[in-house]
């Protein structure tokens, strides 16, 4: 007995592992085991999820053959975390949820990933195939619900299809125009015994997707045409969006811009595709973009769109958008070309491939000296601005300070609204894949869980999330994760006690009738953080702001910073919705 008592933990583990292995080898594998093995085969190192009845077999298989699983406190937290993870690593994030409510809680995140082209592979449990369609307990038609908001979705009908489906799902999610793929997994299939003989033969099988062959190589003739147009242009302009980031083409973009001295502007989601302080970078365009960037679009005679989808928040009134410009549009998704803006030179290709093809041709570029001189002057005349307040802190000041303290190197996630726009304006990014924001869907509650995913993806990076006080309250339950995993995420709550952007629109377009946009009663965010075992700070005055931010942001631990800012501050410049970019207001100080 004495020997037993002195058994070390390591030995115990070894015994347990051996037992487990014997158990595993003796037992035929079921669908759930095969699913987990398929994730291992895809080199998935982390899964965000939440268990439930329909995925019990899956979680049991996960127990036998572990992949790091992060148990969030709500399925929405799991999927936004997976999005954050996917965005900074540029590879698919993986999510597991149960059937019914588990699956429907993912819907917002799936739609968000779809519109922002974020690669995800989402597994949902489903009731057993013999009761599908009978309104069984926790049954929801997630296939029907997610068909319009996924790149593709599958319901597994045969246990032996699992390896093929998982392989296809990862391929579809992460190639072409990226996006979410959902796999619905009925409970009885996860319990069915897998035919190992078939598995061997199917393992080597090539993917067979005759209806899915994204074109990545640019057409030679179109590249010729583009070169000619660039050579002839007097006021060319590059509009770089997320397509550059997904293609990892930042290097090529900078080279191309520098080689021919072409000015570059970004969309909200394209930030980071060129250094935030690059001399050819004229900032973000669109509704709250820089005066110079929007002016450049309206004055350009050639607009080279690389991986942007001409979203209405960028273009304003499409009929009055870039009125003088010939449009070159490089996009991996042919359906985006000509969708919103008529395009003269379409190039269906991966951004990296297209830029490489352009770089390979040495051609005589345009003389952009005068054009750049004009833009530099405009840039000098129309910087982002605010009027300092004697009593209150301005939200812009908080973001500027965070930028200074972190030197532009932090991974930044944002929620949605005013603070998001200020972060885009004032946090100048040094790198690509350090900017995580919900652009297309505008999902409040996105920023904080996305930061958690980003921190798991980049454990050594400083990860900061700017949240509004309202958006933070939509997913704040994930604070538990900061404590549980000692994740050093820095939550900066830009607290104006209002739904800032809604309030701003009500001020500007509804004569200041603040209908349901003020939130006078809020939790004490410091105490709330402490309740979750996270250090909380409050910033009340400008004097203390810098000291507190410095201490909090340089800490190795998770922190929540409640920065009390001026409520009535507005985001400028602003192009009113549906108006032309020429109708921009607030370019200069009022």
């Amino acid at each position: 007995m004495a020997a037993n008592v002195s058994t070390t933990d390591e030995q115990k583990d070894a015994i347990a592992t051996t037992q487990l292995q014997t158990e595993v080898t003796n037992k035929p594998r079921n669908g759930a085991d095969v699913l987990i093995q398929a994730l291992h085969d895809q080199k998935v190192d982390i899964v965000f999820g939440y268990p439930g009845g329909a995925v019990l077999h899956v979680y049991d298989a996960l127990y036998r053959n572990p992949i790091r699983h992060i148990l969030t406190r709500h399925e929405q937290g799991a999927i936004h975390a997976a999005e954050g993870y996917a965005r900074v690593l540029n590879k698919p994030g993986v999510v597991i949820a149960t059937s019914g409510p588990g699956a429907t809680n993912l819907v917002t995140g799936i739609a968000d990933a779809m519109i922002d082209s974020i690669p995800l592979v989402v597994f949902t449990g489903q009731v057993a195939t013999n009761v599908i369609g009978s309104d069984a307990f926790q049954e929801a038609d997630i296939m029907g619900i997610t068909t319009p908001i996924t790149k593709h979705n599958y319901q597994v009908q045969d246990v032996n299809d699992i390896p093929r489906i998982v392989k296809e799902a990862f391929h579809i999610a992460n190639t072409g125009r990226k996006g979410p793929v959902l796999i619905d997994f009925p409970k009885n299939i996860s319990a069915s015994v897998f035919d190992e003989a078939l598995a061997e033969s199917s393992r080597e099988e090539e993917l067979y997707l005759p209806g899915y062959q994204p074109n990545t190589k640019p057409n030679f003739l179109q590249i010729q045409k583009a070169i000619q147009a660039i050579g002839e242009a007097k006021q060319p302009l590059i509009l770089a969006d997320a397509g550059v980031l997904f293609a990892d083409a930042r290097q090529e973009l900078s080279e191309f811009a520098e080689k021919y001295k072409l000015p570059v502007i970004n969309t909200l989601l394209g930030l980071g595709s060129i250094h935030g302080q690059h001399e050819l970078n004229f900032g973000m365009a669109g509704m709250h973009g820089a005066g110079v960037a929007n002016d450049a679009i309206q004055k350009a005679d050639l607009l080279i769109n690389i991986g942007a989808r001409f979203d209405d928040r960028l273009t304003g009134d499409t009929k009055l958008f870039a009125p003088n410009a010939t449009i070159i549009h490089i996009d991996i998704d042919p359906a985006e070309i000509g969708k919103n803006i008529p395009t003269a030179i379409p190039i269906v290709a991966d951004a990296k491939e297209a830029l490489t093809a352009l770089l390979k041709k040495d051609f005589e570029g345009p003389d952009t000296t005068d054009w750049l001189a004009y833009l530099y002057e405009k840039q000098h005349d129309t910087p982002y601005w605010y009027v300092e307040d004697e009593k209150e802190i301005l939200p812009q000041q908080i973001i500027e300070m965070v930028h200074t303290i972190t030197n532009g190197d932090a991974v930044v996630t944002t929620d949605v609204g005013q603070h998001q726009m200020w972060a885009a304006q004032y946090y100048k990014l040094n790198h690509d894949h350090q900017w995580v924001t919900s652009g297309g869907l505008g999902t409040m509650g996105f920023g904080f869980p996305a930061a958690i995913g980003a921190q798991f993806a980049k454990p050594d990076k400083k990860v900061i999330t700017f949240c509004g006080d309202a958006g933070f309250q939509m997913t704040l339950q994930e604070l538990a994760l900061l404590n549980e995993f000692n994740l050093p995420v820095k939550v900066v709550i830009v607290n104006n006690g209002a739904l800032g952007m809604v309030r701003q629109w009500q001020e500007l377009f509804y004569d200041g009738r603040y209908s349901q946009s003020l939130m006078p009663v809020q939790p004490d965010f410091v105490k709330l953080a402490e309740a979750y075992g996270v250090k909380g700070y409050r910033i009340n005055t400008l004097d203390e702001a810098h000291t507190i931010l410095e201490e909090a942001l340089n800490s190795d631990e998770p922190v929540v910073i409640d920065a009390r800012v001026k409520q009535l501050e507005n985001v400028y410049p602003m192009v009113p919705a549906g108006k032309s970019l020429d109708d921009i207001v607030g370019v200069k100080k009022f």
Partner: protein
Amino acid sequence: MKRVITVTVLNQSGVLNRVTGLLMKRQFNIESITVGHTEQANVSKMTFVVHVADETKLEQLVKQLSKQIDVLKVNDITEKSIVLRELALIKVVSPANLRHEMNSIVEPFRPQIIDTSKNVVTYQVVGQPDKIDAFIELIRPYGIKELTRTGVTASVRESQPIETPQLSILK
């Protein structure tokens, strides 16, 4: 403008829902839709008649449909030389004293009588949609009891008029 679009799809469960759902999401109006197997196993073909506002919308429709993973091919065959066919089953009140008259006036449409009873006769008419429209108008005064149409299916003719560059300039 009215367009005839054929979509070749992998015969997976849910594929009809994907295609019609996409048309709904992008606000296209479907006038008719037919689906059936093709000569290839596991491949089905859908024929749509849709209304689109302009060329840009049409291009979007074709591109968005092509993007679907289960869609193999999308063709707008409106401008091609094609065979369009639709089938209608029309149940008409037909008392014995009128039956002879009815049969003789519908004769040019070459309908088949596929069912009769004491007072009712059921015609089957096959042809272009406008032929069926004309048939219905002709028979309507006798009292239509029930009417069902399949929607249009189409096939591109083997020999197409040769389009030379000169001709397309003349267009």
